[in-house]
C-alpha cells in the first residue's frame, strides 16, 4: 500500500503540533498548511514594538513544522477572509471572532488544497469541548459537513470521542492509537508533549488571532462605526495593533506611538494620514485618521504634547504635516491629564 498523505492545519500552537506528530507516528506523510488572515498574532507586532526585539522572535507555525520535520505551506487568505469576518453565518464568539465560520473556511481551503495536491485526508488539532464556539461536540460535525471534508477530516487528539472517519475505516490509521482528549484541561496535551520531547512550544493566552481580543475588537468596531461601513484593508488591520487610539470627536481618531519602534512604523503612513511630531521635546509620532478642522489640529497637537516629554512644560512645539507634505508649526499647551476624557480611549 502506498503511503497515505495528510495535510495538517498548523496554527503554531501545541495542539496542531501534537496532532501532526501523532499522524507521523503512524507512518502517514504529513505536510502542514497555515492560513494568514491578517489578524494572526504571529509576526507583526513583534516586529513593530521595539521592546519585543530582545525576545527571540519566531513564527510558531514555521517552528512547529521544523520540529516535525514537515513542509509548511503558508497561504494568504486576507482578501477571502473579509467575507468570513463580515458575514459569519454562525455569528461571533465573545468578541469579533467568527470562529466557527473561520474553521469551516480553513478546513474547506485545506480540503481543496488536498484535492489539488493528491492528499488523502485533513487533520486538525481540535479537541472536543476546548473552545466555546468551534470546538464543541455539536459544532465539530458542522465543521466536517460544511467544509465539505466530511469523513476525510480527522482530529487525532479527540478522535475516539467522535464517529469513525474514513482514514480509520479504511485502515490508513489505527484508531486505537488516537486519543480521547476533551475539555479545557491542558494536562493530557502537556503529557503528550513531554512524551514526544517537545519543549518550548508556544502558549498563546487567547485564541490564534487578534479577533478574540476584547480591546482589538473594540477598535475594529469603532473604526467601522466611524467610517459608516465595514470595509477594511491590510493597513487598517495593522494600525489597530499599534499605538494608543484616542477618539476626541466622532470624525477623527488619533493613533499615538508608544515607543520608538511604533513611532518609526507610524512614520511610514505619513503620506496617508495627517501626522504630528514634537519638535521642542522628545515625543511620539501621532497619526490623525479622519477629517480635521484647524481647531481639531490644535486639539490633536495638545494631546500629542501630553504624551511627550514636555507634558509638564508651558508650551510644546509641534509640527503638523498634511499628506501632501505641507507642514505647519504649532505652539501648544499640553492637555492636562484630566482633560483627556476616559471615553476617548478606544
Amino acid at each position: 500500500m502506498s503511503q497515505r498523505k495528510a495535510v495538517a492545519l498548523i496554527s503554531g500552537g501545541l495542539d496542531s503540533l501534537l496532532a501532526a506528530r501523532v499522524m507521523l507516528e503512524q507512518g502517514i506523510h504529513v505536510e502542514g498548511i497555515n492560513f494568514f488572515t491578517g489578524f494572526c498574532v504571529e509576526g507583526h507586532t513583534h516586529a513593530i514594538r521595539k521592546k519585543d526585539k530582545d525576545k527571540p522572535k519566531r513564527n510558531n507555525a514555521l517552528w512547529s513544522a521544523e520540529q516535525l520535520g514537515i513542509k509548511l505551506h503558508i497561504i494568504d487568505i486576507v482578501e477571502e477572509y473579509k467575507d468570513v469576518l463580515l458575514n459569519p453565518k454562525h455569528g461571533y464568539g465573545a468578541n469579533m471572532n467568527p470562529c466557527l465560520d473561520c474553521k469551516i473556511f480553513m478546513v474547506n481551503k485545506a480540503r481543496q488544497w488536498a484535492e489539488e495536491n493528491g492528499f488523502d485526508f485533513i487533520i486538525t488539532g481540535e479537541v472536543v469541548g476546548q473552545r466555546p464556539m468551534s470546538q464543541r461536540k455539536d459544532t465539530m460535525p458542522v465543521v466536517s459537513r460544511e467544509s465539505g471534508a466530511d469523513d476525510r477530516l480527522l482530529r487525532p487528539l479527540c478522535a475516539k470521542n467522535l464517529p469513525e472517519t474514513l482514514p480509520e475505516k479504511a485502515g490508513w490509521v489505527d484508531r486505537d492509537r488516537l486519543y480521547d482528549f476533551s475539555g479545557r484541561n491542558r494536562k493530557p496535551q502537556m503529557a503528550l508533549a513531554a512524551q514526544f520531547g517537545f519543549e518550548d512550544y508556544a502558549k498563546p493566552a487567547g485564541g490564534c488571532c487578534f479577533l478574540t481580543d476584547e480591546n482589538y475588537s473594540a477598535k475594529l468596531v469603532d473604526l467601522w462605526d466611524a467610517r459608516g461601513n465595514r470595509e477594511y484593508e491590510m493597513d487598517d488591520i495593522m494600525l489597530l495593533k499599534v499605538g494608543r487610539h484616542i477618539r476626541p470627536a466622532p470624525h477623527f481618531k488619533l493613533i499615538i506611538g508608544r515607543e520608538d519602534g511604533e513611532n518609526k512604523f507610524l512614520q511610514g503612513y505619513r503620506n496617508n494620514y495627517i501626522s504630528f511630531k514634537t519638535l521642542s521635546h522628545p515625543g511620539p509620532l501621532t497619526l490623525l485618521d479622519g477629517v480635521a478642522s484647524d481647531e481639531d489640529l490644535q486639539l490633536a497637537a495638545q494631546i500629542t504634547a501630553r504624551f511627550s516629554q514636555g507634558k509638564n512644560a508651558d508650551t510644546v512645539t509641534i509640527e503638523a504635516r498634511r499628506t501632501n507634505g505641507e507642514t505647519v508649526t504649532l505652539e501648544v499647551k499640553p492637555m492636562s491629564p484630566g482633560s483627556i476624557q476616559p471615553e476617548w480611549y478606544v
Partner: protein
Amino acid sequence: MAHYELDARRMFCPMPVIRTQDKISELAVGDTLEVVSTDPGALNDIPAWSRINGHKILATRDAGDEVFVTIEICAEQ
C-alpha cells in the same frame, strides 16, 4: 540557472515568507533568489521556511533598516 530578486519591503511577517514561497514555486532547481525585507523577522522566518522546504540559504545580511536573504532553490516544488 538564473538569479532573481524579490522586493518584500514594507510587509510584515509572514507576508515576506508567503511572497518568497510563491516566487520560489515559479523557479527551477539551481536558481537563486535574493529577498529584501524591512521586517527584521524575515531574517529568521525566511531561512526557517527554506530549511523545512529543502532549500539552501546562501547568505543573510542585516543592513539595519533592511535585511537580505539569498536562497538557492534545491528541492523540486
